[in-house]
């Protein structure tokens, strides 16, 4: 089974996110970077599927040259091939990103055959666009379901489990298919020593991105208004219990 996982490099946020002076991006001077959480789980899911069924996992990212770091992280946890689609800014708009990724995927498949599965994160942690996977799937003429909290493949059918208020929904897509994965589908493993060595040696393929600018234009980022910090301290230690239950009664949650 051949699986491609599309990941995004995002800042690992702390307790506060600061913005650069031009308002165009998150100030990362004091932040590290990570693979966006949903995609970290997508990589793990792909690796587990390949461990079960055989095959290989390729990881792809569209991002700055530094995003090689996230590709190597994915290799250290089980991916074997890595593709960088380099752009000179942090990210592109969703339409442009999807067009570029779809074009690169078609090129890769022309050389190596179709991927049985292409996994995306449900949405990126930073820009939260909720659409790159869906747009890419449509360009590749493949079915896609988002929100996967479970994914199994048996006889060319991918079974997706997804949570809703009413319970768990089950979808079945014939492969080749695309799936948007959500955190919680698994607990991603830590890199192994062997994985770390492989991640240092892996050759990262570069593919030039082609994509026209889309219709969603970032003007500026800003921080949401701070909540006034007028916390009412109800007490210290177990003696505060009485005041807490008074509050619960006042709010009507305990009668």
């Amino acid at each position, binding site marked *: 089974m051949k699986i491609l996982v599309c990941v995004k490099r995002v800042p690992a*946020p702390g307790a506060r996110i600061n913005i650069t002076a031009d308002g165009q991006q998150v100030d990362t001077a004091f932040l590290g970077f990570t693979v966006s959480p949903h995609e970290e789980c997508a990589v793990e899911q792909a690796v587990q599927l390949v461990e079960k069924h055989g095959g290989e996992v390729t990881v792809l990212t569209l991002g700055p040259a530094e995003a090689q770091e996230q590709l190597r992280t994915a290799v250290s946890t089980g991916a074997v091939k890595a593709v960088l689609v380099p752009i000179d800014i942090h990210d592109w708009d969703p339409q442009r990103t999807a067009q570029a990724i779809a074009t690169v995927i078609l090129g890769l498949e022309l050389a190596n055959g179709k991927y049985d599965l292409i996994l995306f994160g449900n949405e990126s942690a930073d820009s939260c666009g909720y659409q790159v996977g869906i747009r890419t799937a449509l360009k590749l003429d493949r079915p896609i379901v988002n929100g996967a909290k479970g994914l199994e493949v048996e006889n060319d059918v991918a079974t997706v489990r997804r949570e*809703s208020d009413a319970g768990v929904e089950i979808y079945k897509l014939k492969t080749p298919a695309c799936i948007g994965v959500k955190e919680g589908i698994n607990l991603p493993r830590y890199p192994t020593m062997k994985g770390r060595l492989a991640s240092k040696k892996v050759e990262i393929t570069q593919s030039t991105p082609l994509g026209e600018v889309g219709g969603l234009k970032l003007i500026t980022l800003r921080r949401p208004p701070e*909540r006034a910090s007028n916390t009412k301290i109800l007490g210290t230690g177990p003696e505060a219990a009485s005041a807490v239950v008074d509050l619960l009664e006042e709010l009507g949650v305990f009668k």
Partner: protein
Amino acid sequence: MTVLAVVEHDRGTISTASLGVLTAARNLAKQMNTKFEALTIGANADALSEVISKYGATTIHQAHNSALTDFGPEAWGESIAQVVNKTSPQVVIGSGTERGHEIIAQAAARLDLPAAMNCLEFDKDFTGAQALKVVRARWGGSLMEESELDAPIKLVTLANHIVEGAQDPTNSQIAVIEVDLDDSVKQSFVQDRVERVAGVTLATSPVVVSGGRGVGSAEAFAPLEELAGLLSGVVGCSRAVTNNGWRNHTDQVGQTGTRIAPDIYIACGISGAIQHWVGAMASKNILAINIDAQANIVTKAGYAVIGDLHVVVPAISAEIRKRQNK
């Protein structure tokens, strides 16, 4: 010249988020001096016209196709795209939920139009002719993005819990639109489901008692379970807890977990990292129980108890029992 609200429903049951969408669409249409219309997908949602008319839609488009008996993101997205092509709205608003984002993205991809998800505000001067300026939530709401949607038809989702449903009844016209769905969009319908046992869920519970790294172990959640039980609430947790394997991810509150809006959120031993905070910030009241008076969550919460949750939580449960027995 219309604003079209896409009504999210589950086999004929309207979602709460949809009521906010209907209200926001009506407000925007009024500002643009244009008509507000709604769309339901599948004949099993036809009966929702009664509710929708209370929110003031002049026309309710009902997309019909014999295949539309359950949710299917591709078939729903294709249905929206076809209704948009037939009715030429200027703005299409969907709900800021998992399904809402998915079907608007599907429609946008099919129409080759941009889409802005999780919008918090729309430009107050927007009349329909120009690009639509929006403020949308990034990082699950810890950052705001001002952006411009430059397209003949603007597709957006409204961030959840931003606009409360408010009625303004009218006599809605009903217009059935038969949509054409080919096999390519039919395989992604829900094939089967495991219904949740009746009871409150993390997303809907009025009381959530949540634990963080400070709880220390899976077993140490027992007092939180007890308190939640006494308040008929549910237990939640932070990402640190699920990463440690102490609780299932379904209990996780936060950007990559569940967004909640209970009457009270009791956060025990949670520092309040931004990814967690954005999942809890819609709570009507927050009570933080933490040994660190400077913890992020303590400074943001409405109420706090400074102390060790392992002692404070059982003391609260004991106090509740004492009053119950009176």
